[in-house]
């Protein structure tokens, strides 16, 4: 564990909208039509993720991992099947309604960090806090930066930070609003092994401390093994689903 991280008093009875199932997919499929032919990216995916569970989605490149993640998070619409996110069926919601559902309740970590280059580290963490209307946003943001060990870098912009540092800021941003679920798409893909390992430790620490649900896309078998559940995709289909190593 990182020395600077303080344990956070998790309140398990935290929101009135707490759902035993964080995200659920039924018969999920995604097809796109290209110039030549129709391409099936995902087919007939069933999935039920309990609140507080950690899931790894693995599979070869191009197997549809990111596509699935996007559908589960409501970033895109499936061509068939349905997704229920935090108790809300997504099919009935338009783009803006889905956005409102995400605000403050869903966190994201990306392979390419996706920090706003114009803002400082602190402001990047502040962003979701302010947007979800938290009152003591600034204090909370500082607190989160401290937890990821970047208190002294608060006023630096992403360009002045290393890749690992940027990803730590991104983690702070993802967890800052106490989201009920965090989606991470290959969070270590752009980092060297050592740094990647530290980021993963931090990610799991934060996850344990806050009790969020975590859905993680990764190539890394060792990483997948640390999750309570895993889902292996091949060519858009589930080839293996079940409990992870330590579940």
């Amino acid at each position: 564990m990182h020395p600077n991280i303080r344990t956070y008093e998790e309140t398990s009875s935290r929101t009135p909208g707490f759902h035993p199932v964080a995200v659920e997919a039924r018969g999920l499929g995604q097809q796109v039509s290209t110039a030549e032919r129709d391409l099936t990216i995902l087919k007939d995916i069933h999935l039920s993720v309990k609140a507080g569970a950690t899931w790894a989605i693995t599979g070869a490149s191009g197997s549809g991992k990111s596509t699935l993640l996007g559908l589960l998070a409501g970033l895109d619409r499936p061509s068939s099947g349905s997704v229920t996110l935090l108790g809300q069926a997504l099919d009935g919601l338009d783009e803006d309604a889905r956005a409102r559902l995400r605000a403050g309740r869903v966190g994201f970590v990306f392979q390419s960090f996706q920090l706003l280059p114009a803002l400082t580290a602190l402001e990047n963490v502040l962003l979701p806090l302010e947007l979800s209307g938290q009152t003591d946003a600034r204090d909370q943001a500082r607190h989160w930066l401290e937890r990821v060990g970047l208190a002294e870098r608060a006023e630096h912009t992403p360009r002045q930070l290393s890749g690992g540092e940027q990803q730590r800021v991104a983690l702070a941003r993802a967890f800052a609003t106490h989201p009920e679920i965090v989606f991470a798409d290959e969070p270590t893909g752009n980092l060297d092994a050592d740094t990647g390992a530290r980021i993963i430790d931090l990610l799991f620490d934060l996850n344990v401390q806050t009790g969020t649900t975590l859905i993680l896309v990764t190539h890394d078998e060792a990483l997948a093994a640390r999750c309570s559940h895993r889902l292996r995709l091949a060519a858009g289909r589930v080839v293996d689903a079940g409990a992870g190593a330590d579940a």
Partner: protein
Amino acid sequence: MMRWLRLGLTLLRRERASGEWRILLLALVIGVGSVSTTGFLGDRLKRAMTERGAGFLGADLLVTSPRPIQAWPDHDLDTSQAIELASMASRGDLFQLVTLRAVDAAWPLRGQVRIAQRPFEDGQPGPALPPPGDIYVETGLLSLLDAQVGDRVRIGASEFRIGGLVADEPGRIGGIFGLAPRVFLRADALAATQVLQPGSRITYLYQFAGAPEAIEGFARALKPRLDNTQRLTGAREGSQVLRGPFANADRYIQLTALISLLLSVAAVAIAARRHALRHYDQAALLRCLGATTGQLRTLYASQWLLLGLLGSLLGVGLGALAQQGLAALLLPEAAWQLPELGWAPVGAGMLSGLLALAGASLPYLLRLSQTPPLRVLRRDLPPLPLAAWLSAAITGTALTGLVLWYAQDAQLVAVFLGALAALVLTLAILARLALAGGRWVRRLSAGPLRFGLAQLLRHRLDSTLQLGAFTLALFLLALLTLVRTDLVHGWRQQLPADAPNHFLVNIAPHQQQEVSAYLAKYPIKSSDLYPMIRGKLVTRNGQPITEGLSEAAREDNTLRRELNLTWTGRLPANNEILAGTWHGNRPGDEISVEARMAERLGLALGDRLGFQVGDQTVEARITSLRSVQWESLQPNFFVIFAPGPLETLPASGLAAIHVPPEARDALTGFVKAFPGITVLALDKLMNDIQAVFDQIIAALQLLLGFLLAAGMAVVLATLLASLDARQQEAVLLRTLGAPRAFLAKSLWSEFLALGALAGLLASACAEIAMALIAQRLFELSPQWHPLMWISLPLAGALLVGAGGWLTTRQITRIPPMQSIRALS
């Protein structure tokens, strides 16, 4: 809502140093600056007029006529009348053409005349009627006659004391078109001066004032009685009419300003596009974090709005400064008299800025706020395209609205947009051709030059746009300069050394012998003396002349005013018969008509034309068509009669003379000897006209400065738009081992080539346009301008080179490692 607004402003503050915001701001400042420069001045002029209300006309109703009007409809209105004519005023050996206005005690019925005792004083309000023996003169006359208030001045056969200076009079803003200074004298003193001769060009002014209904009824009854040489003006139209030529100049000056605004819009659009491209990731991320379309719209709109307000405000400020310069150029004497800056143009400027910004950027803003959130996972995902019709409709509406608003005349707008479109198209084609030519040059070149040219050719659309915008600015600038030097100075140089420099007007028939005798005593070269009668062309073959004529032909100058008719048996020296035979000395009802006039009005040999001369009608048959060298400064006539038909009518004589410098004194004596004859000093008149012309051109050039800046903004905006791609390329080149100097040289060669090419294209356009203008409009032989072909490309290369280098030099500075990071 507030949160998104705040975030928008925070982001804007953080990104304020970014290139696209700067360009956007720059373009807006230039565009708004140019339209508010003219806006402010126009507004001040308009208020100068309306603030004086009816006082501007001097009455509630004004009737002007070239002949006295005897019979009026019944009325019980207050009346006043005046006679206005050009005449000579002299003092010692100095003489000057003035505009005499002989007034009665009631003049003016409305508003006031202010008479001052010293130049540039405000003066006391009072009647325009001077005490007996006195005249009131405009300040400008003092220096022309080397006189002071209290000095004596001769007008015709009388002498007057200058009793005061006209500091202000209804309808006068002073400045630009006051070529013959105003002199007020008593109507009862006019006869004694003997300046009124039969055939003199006189304007009779009748003022009326009274209750509005009475005025209206009177005007209704009067209107049908007036012919079209007579004019009735109400207080409302008064300011329009009196603004006269300036009203038109004003319109064209506004349109020039508008072109700058439109160019700025192009620059804004390019910058907006780049801004959108660079912010799709940001927008996608914010959507991921839960932003709705509406919230993103708030965020980006707040940024654009703030920037729009800031840019427009700065532009308005710039306009407020520049308008003072424009006022000083256009109205040197009156600039200080104009009212304070008004608020209306501030609003108009801000609104044009925002409208321009909206037209240029709204489509991008809409796209940005609809970025799909999935883009955070799939970076290649393009933003949703906005329906093409929607963005075209937004931009089209905003821009057409702008143009309409400024031109306020649908036909003018159509012509303007058509001409602009044609010009843009031509420039685009030329630019493409030039770029194709560049391919040849590239083949022959090597190293950085080759690389730089390759850049130009690769970004063909960008290059076309840059070339087009910059060429347009340079072209208009060059054209204006050429018009001034070629047409005005060039024409004067083309005149023979002994071309007439004075006109003698109003020579009474009985004076002709004496005048000839007087002139013969001096080394003065005189043209033939032409009798002159004013008459209006009214019929053709017994039908009203307007019948069957197009709208444009009906508005022809030769129909709107009375023509100067003459008769002679000798074909004037610079005229040439193009059709028919010259009537020579055979007396009869024959006329010779200027060929272009005949063409415009559809007149043919054999047609019988009827002229209204006074209350008589004279008819004659066209037996020849002539060409006339209008620019020869000789007396020229549209219509020349054979001896006979006109001889019984009262005529006054006209002659052109060349007075060599050593015989100047002869003129002083002449003015004294022949009080009724007006001596028009052509060289002085030409100097005055040229001064006016120079003023207008200088004003236009000031505005073209804006245009050049706007063209520059387009160039910079397009360069900026390609900056990311260039940076990537530069990094690649540097990692491959290209030295920094290579990059710098290739950038320089690209921009120098671009600027020089724009200069060349502009030279070609200006040369062609000038040749057309010279030949078609002024019948001058076109000439080459080798200096322009050198200076324009040079200026273009320097401007674009410096601007381009400043925008892109960072590419060569960043070490490759850092750029790799900046790009990822």
